[in-house]
């Protein structure tokens, strides 16, 4: 295999692994930019993966053919938003500790989804196998060496993720809505004085994060596993949180961080092609991304740039 093809394939599977992380990290950004910690990304991804598995299955049964995975995506958005609504009500309206109510989402998601799957599919702990997304090549662009194979022969969800990164960046930093959302996360008191409805903006931020993390979870069901079980997500939500912090709460940064994690998952399969890798225990190869993240954080990133009002509920009577 020549080097260019190898590089192209490596890039391609990097994107496969990072897509779910991109969606979820973007979701995390919308919530945290508005000042609400979202440790519940893991649970929201579980909700999304579950809804995609169930939604796609029933859409297929109803004869919707190739459109079924998209029904799965829509189901994931709806269920993700509903899940994040619990977080929003507890953390914003009832001023609960934001970390705690995020953890609640993780618990409810882990319990509810498997419970419902067992009810729907006669005690089976897994949804039936579905016909998932197929990779779609973009004509002409896919003939570019390396990048063509890397970027332009991907799952539809990957294209969607890349578009959403650009869109999120634009919305957050170039529109009045984005300014309001960020102001509510930095200094809600000032935003309130200027007539921004803090509660409403925070609800919007959290619900967007539910939708995006839902798509993120759905991506794993619809491109990698083709079924939903209790271990479909297993920690990806926490990696997405890490990607968000690593990317300094910026959509483009999060894209980079998510691709870094995706790359280190992808490289596992390629490293084993080389003779010299046999002498390194595989556990150490598995460890690389996590150790490397810490090293990069130590050497480059330094103090984190979290929104100032992150984690505090807004009380208009308090100044």
């Amino acid at each position, binding site marked *: 295999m020549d080097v260019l093809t190898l590089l192209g394939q490596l890039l391609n599977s990097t994107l496969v692994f990072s897509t779910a992380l991109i969606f979820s990290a973007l979701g995390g950004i919308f919530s945290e930019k508005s000042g609400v910690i979202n*440790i519940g990304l893991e649970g929201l991804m579980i909700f999304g993966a579950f809804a995609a598995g169930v939604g796609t299955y029933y859409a297929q049964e109803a004869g919707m053919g190739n459109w079924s995975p998209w029904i799965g995506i829509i189901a994931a958005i709806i269920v993700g938003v509903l899940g994040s609504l*619990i977080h929003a*009500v*507890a953390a914003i*309206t*009832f*001023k*609960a*500790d934001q*970390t*705690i*109510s995020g*953890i*609640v*989402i*993780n*618990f*409810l998601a*882990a*319990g*509810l989804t*498997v*419970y419902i799957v*067992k*009810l729907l599919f006669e*005690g089976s702990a897994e949804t039936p196998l579905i016909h998932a997304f197929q990779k779609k090549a973009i004509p002409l662009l896919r003939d570019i060496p390396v990048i063509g194979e890397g970027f332009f022969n991907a799952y539809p969800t990957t294209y969607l993720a890349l578009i959403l990164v650009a869109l999120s960046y634009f919305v957050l930093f170039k529109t009045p809505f984005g300014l309001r959302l960020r102001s509510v996360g930095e200094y809600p008191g000032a935003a309130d004085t200027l007539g921004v409805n803090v509660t409403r903006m925070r609800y919007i931020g959290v619900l967007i994060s539910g939708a995006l993390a839902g798509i993120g979870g759905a991506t794993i069901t619809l491109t990698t596993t083709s079924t939903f079980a*209790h*271990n479909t997500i*297993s*920690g990806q939500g*926490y*990696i997405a*949180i*890490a990607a968000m*912090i*690593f990317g300094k709460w910026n959509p483009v940064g999060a894209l980079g961080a998510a691709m870094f994690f995706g790359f280190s998952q992808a490289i596992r399969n390629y490293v084993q092609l080389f003779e010299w890798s046999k002498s390194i*225990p595989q*556990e*150490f190869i*598995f*460890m690389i*991304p*996590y*150790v490397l*993240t*810490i090293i990069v*954080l*130590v050497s480059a*990133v*330094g*103090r*984190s740039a*979290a929104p100032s009002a992150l984690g505090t509920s807004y009380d208009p009577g308090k100044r």
Partner: protein
Amino acid sequence: MNKWRKIFLSDNIIVPLVAILLGLLVGAAVMLIGGYNPIDAYRFLIKRVVGTPYDFGETIRQITPLIFTGLSVAFAFRSGLFNIGADGQVLIGMTASTAVALSWSGLPSWLLVPLSVIAGGLAGGLWASIAGYLKAKRGINEVITTIMLNWTALYFSNYVIRHFYLLKGQNRSEDIGASATMTFLGSTFSNARVHWGTVIALLAAVFFFVYLWKTKQGYEMRAVGLNSKAAEYAGMNVGTNVVKAMFISGVFAGLAGTFEVIGVFHYQSVFAASPGYGFDGIAVALLGMNHPFGVVLSAILYGVLTYGSAGMSFGAGVPPELIKIVIGSIIFFIAAQGIVRFVLKPFYLKRKKEKVM
């Protein structure tokens, strides 16, 4: 009499009790929707826990690591840190204890057991200190480092077990010798795997309380947790306190791992994914409102519910995942106390009227 009445009617007691009740009601509602009989299910749950001495002992076994990990997360919380990494610290503690127990299996029991316990606690503490140090020195968010350290710990401990202590043909370590085990009253509980770790867990809770609320060092730690800038201004060394708090938090978690090896399983598995001890610990700490005695009570509740859930699914056919919904709802109601207060409103009004009269 009046004093006791006051304590039992205070919000710190009533709100959790009402939250537990509401959580069980949510579980019952979910069971009804699924077509199960909730009363039967809860009856089988209780029966499973107190039915036989063996099951009762096993419930205690289930509760023990929950106390340790709950204390671990709660201790970090009190110092203003979120330790998502208890899971990794448990694994590292396990690995250190297994390594000591298997490497020096010739030592007499009175020496080997304490050595193994100290190794486990120390290893967990040092592992957690990495995150504490990076937070103190470089201001790196401990959430991200502890998540990364969880995965690193998982692969690292798998490496150690696979390459040095593997039982041939199995996905686990060799059995540790009898001299390294610490069982306790096993015969009373018809061979349930009870061990001294439970007693040490309770002592750890007492230590937690005394250290944080009765010593100068503990006072500093709480001050740093409440407002690190004010603490610094008052002349306290925030960095040292952060590292120390993570160390102690890690010791608690490491001990959870130690006793799972030398008290319960007597070997260490090669884990394919995170075993989840640390995440249970987060829930226990939150349920216990980050107070050591609250943690003990919530570990009991959590342990009873999870161990009993098997009986629920065996007896009434309810999927055991239901219990996660119950636990999630209880934490939800404790966190969103506004909802509980809303439910209690009529009673509060009544009490106020009494006062007026």
